[in-house]
């Protein structure tokens, strides 16, 4: 398929060189023009308490009590909050000027109805630790809401600020006070309302005239469905769309190509998540820490960043970037060095019979099985690069591309030596990422089973999540991240960044902490 991509890239290149079309399109755009963005699929079911809708669209319509920003958790529909000394009770003071777009008042009663609807479908949200810990939700008065937990949970505020499920829909849209079996309309308090959706074609959003906050500059948004990557770029070139946004929609090659174009703007976010390789410590050849550490030294992250991602994704030294809360713990990166790797492998008893041959120990070769998602061209490229690099030091990698679901099943079962992995990304990192290490969610739990400190790791994670003292929490994070780094279970590769390509006259193209949200309400022409 690479030749197909190259052919299409060449075609886009031709289109970029040839300026026809765009100038007229630019002139035709009125001052009060609509913003058209492309998406690869329909917005689907926007019920904010479920998970089958497009997050960017849910984020335009529905809002939460607090909001996750680069500076941390900030007030949103709640003007402020207090936390009880034991860390279990959160009292939120709601804004008094908020209406749902259908005219219904947003108050503590409406908020409680929403929480009740979410909790009534609790089994759907078990991926969120806090769901299990929520004890009761009370409307103290018209504008005060109290949520009590069974035990303290430090990421509570972050988790009620993520796009779903803790966002508010008008009580009039619920079916008998429930949202579990669907809603009658998508009415929220957010800056936009859904005006129309032609399924699989285009969704139209208009500015909410009852919006309590700063009114968006763009009054009409259209989300056009264009499933094909190259067709999206051609539509952008023609001026039919103004914006392509997100890692799913733009590959590194396209970004690099568009960066050199004078007609379009590009934007890259700060690192959002870490692309990494998970090394299974419970497998015979990987039980020895020195072998895992040798693999770290055999990986040239800079070469991966530049050779495979054209520099769009920066080299990652740690599994959680130092910019992630609690993760700047002063670790020393593993330097790319075949000499260091060779020394470690020799010390572990793996001897190389001849250059280019796999090392051996007790007559068995040092062969490792690497699994990747066969739908991902990037993972295949990285795997092939690692295969060549590792063999130089006598580590044989056998590559296996598998269909995504089979690959996920294998991860969960721990049936792998090495597997591609990714952190959850902001704002879910670090809490959701470490939370998934104590039980079988992805491959983390099984990969760590061979570590001598596994029990202490799990206990520390549980203690971190319920800790109320930030200093103590930091201390535990430092121990946890240092241990995981030293044990070399995660082989960090690159920091993934969100990306956007847009028409030059579109301003304020920025990024939210969540890579799935698009801050369209801040954009303007």
């Amino acid at each position, binding site marked *: 398929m690479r030749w197909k991509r190259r052919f299409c890239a060449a075609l886009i290149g031709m289109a970029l060189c040839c300026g026809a079309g765009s100038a007229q399109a630019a002139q035709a755009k009125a001052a009060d023009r609509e913003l058209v963005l492309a998406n690869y699929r329909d917005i689907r079911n926007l019920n904010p308490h479920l998970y089958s809708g497009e997050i960017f669209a849910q984020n335009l319509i529905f809002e939460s009590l607090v909001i996750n920003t680069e500076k941390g958790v900030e007030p949103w529909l709640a003007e402020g909050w207090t936390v009880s000394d034991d860390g279990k009770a959160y009292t939120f003071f709601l804004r008094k000027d908020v209406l749902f777009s259908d005219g219904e008042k947003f108050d503590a009663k409406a908020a409680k109805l929403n929480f009740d609807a979410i909790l009534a479908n609790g089994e759907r949200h078990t991926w969120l630790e806090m769901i299990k810990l929520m004890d009761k939700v009370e409307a103290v008065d018209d504008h005060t809401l109290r949520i009590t937990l069974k035990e303290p949970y430090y990421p509570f505020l972050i988790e009620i600020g993520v796009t779903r499920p803790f966002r508010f829909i008008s009580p009039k849209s619920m079916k008998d006070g429930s949202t579990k079996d669907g809603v009658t309309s998508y009415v929220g308090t957010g800056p936009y309302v859904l005006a129309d959706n032609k399924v699989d074609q285009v969704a139209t959003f208009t500015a909410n005239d009852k919006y309590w906050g700063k009114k968006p500059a763009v009054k009409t948004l259209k989300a056009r469905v264009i499933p094909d990557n190259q067709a999206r770029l051609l*539509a952008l070139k023609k001026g039919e769309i103004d914006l392509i946004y997100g890692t799913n929609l733009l590959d590194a090659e396209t970004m690099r190509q568009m960066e050199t174009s004078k007609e379009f703007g590009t934007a890259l976010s700060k690192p959002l998540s870490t692309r990494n390789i998970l090394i299974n410590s419970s497998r015979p050849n990987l039980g020895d820490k020195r072998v895992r550490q040798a693999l770290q030294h055999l990986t040239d992250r800079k070469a991966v960043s530049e050779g495979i991602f054209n520099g769009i994704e920066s080299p990652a030294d740690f599994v959680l970037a130092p910019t992630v809360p609690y993760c700047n713990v002063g670790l020393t990166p593993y330097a790319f060095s075949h000499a260091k790797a060779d020394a470690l492998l020799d010390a572990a008893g793996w001897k190389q019979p001849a250059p280019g041959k796999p090392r051996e120990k007790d007559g068995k070769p040092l062969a490792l099985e690497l699994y990747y998602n066969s739908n991902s061209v990037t993972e295949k490229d990285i795997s092939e690069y690692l295969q060549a690099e590792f063999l130089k030091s006598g580590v044989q990698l056998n590559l296996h591309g598998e269909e995504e679901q089979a690959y996920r099943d294998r991860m969960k079962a721990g049936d792998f030596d090495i597997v591609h992995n990714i952190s959850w990304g902001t704002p879910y990192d670090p809490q959701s990422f470490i939370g998934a290490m104590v039980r079988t969610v992805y491959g983390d739990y099984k990969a760590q089973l061979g570590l001598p400190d596994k029990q202490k790791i799990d206990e520390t994670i549980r203690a971190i999540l319920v800790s109320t003292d930030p200093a103590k929490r930091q201390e535990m994070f430092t121990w946890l991240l240092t241990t995981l780094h030293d044990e070399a279970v995660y082989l960090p590769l690159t920091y993934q960044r969100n990306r956007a390509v847009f028409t030059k006259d579109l301003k304020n193209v920025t990024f939210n902490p969540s890579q799935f949200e698009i801050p369209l309400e801040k954009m303007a022409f």
Partner: protein
Amino acid sequence: MRRYVLSRLLAAVPLLLGVSFLAFVLVTLIPADPAEVALRVNEIIPSPELIELQRKELGLDQPFWERYVRWLGNSLRLDFGHSYTNHHRTVAGELGRCLPATLSLAGVSLLFVVGASIPLAVASAMTRDSLFDRLVRTLVFFGTAMPNYWVAFLAIWLFAVHFDLLPTGGDEGWRSYLLPAFTLSMTYISTYVRLIRNTMLAVMQEPFVLYARARGLPEAAVVRHVLKNSLQSSLTALGMSVPQLIAGSFVVENIFAWPGVGRLCVSAIFNRDYPVIQAYVLMMGVLFIVCNLLVDIISAMIDPRRQAEL
């Protein structure tokens, strides 16, 4: 004749059953738990309890044959269940929503095929080995060789971006039909031009043509007779092109963001929306069998030689 039609109809029944079984079993052979998939496609992290709950909801805890018979019975009533990705939409509803777009695109493509291939083939056959004939044959060669996604991108770049004449995709009125229908029909036009031209050249060697010319019939009348006798094989092939146009539209629909069944099927495959995939495979299988049956019956009816045999 009646016996022939009846026997063909009866023969189609086990074939239809086979297709339905394949449509059902192929999806269940995928090495992934559909209950878990149904959770994952909705971005829910599956826990053992959730998987069990989902399994019961989807009836996956029932024995295989029971599930197949129930599915088949429901399918006969056009009830294909609900989509995994959107529980509130029925599969039949989704197919009903997307089918008109695909049928109208296939219809326009068929018009392109008939409208372009007959005149080109006739002109080419009548001017055999001329510059025009050679040009047509070269174009036919390229038209057959070029994959339709390539043609699609070239067409978008040229007509939509460079000349700014047509939209790049979507369904926004008659102008939106032109590029996808052109792309979809190109391979068929090339096939039929070649087929009709070659048959015409063969028919032109038949004694009745010589006789017609000897009788002094005008050339237009001779051509009419030649064409009439040449279209028999093309008509059979054209009949089978209808399901091919419908089933083969998925690449074109995806590139042109055309809201048809092909795209529905591609997104169902990506989302592992098994009920939609099963219904799509069944529908296409039935369409091919029915079209094949109709073409056989019609060609038997219009061909006096076969009528005599029957």
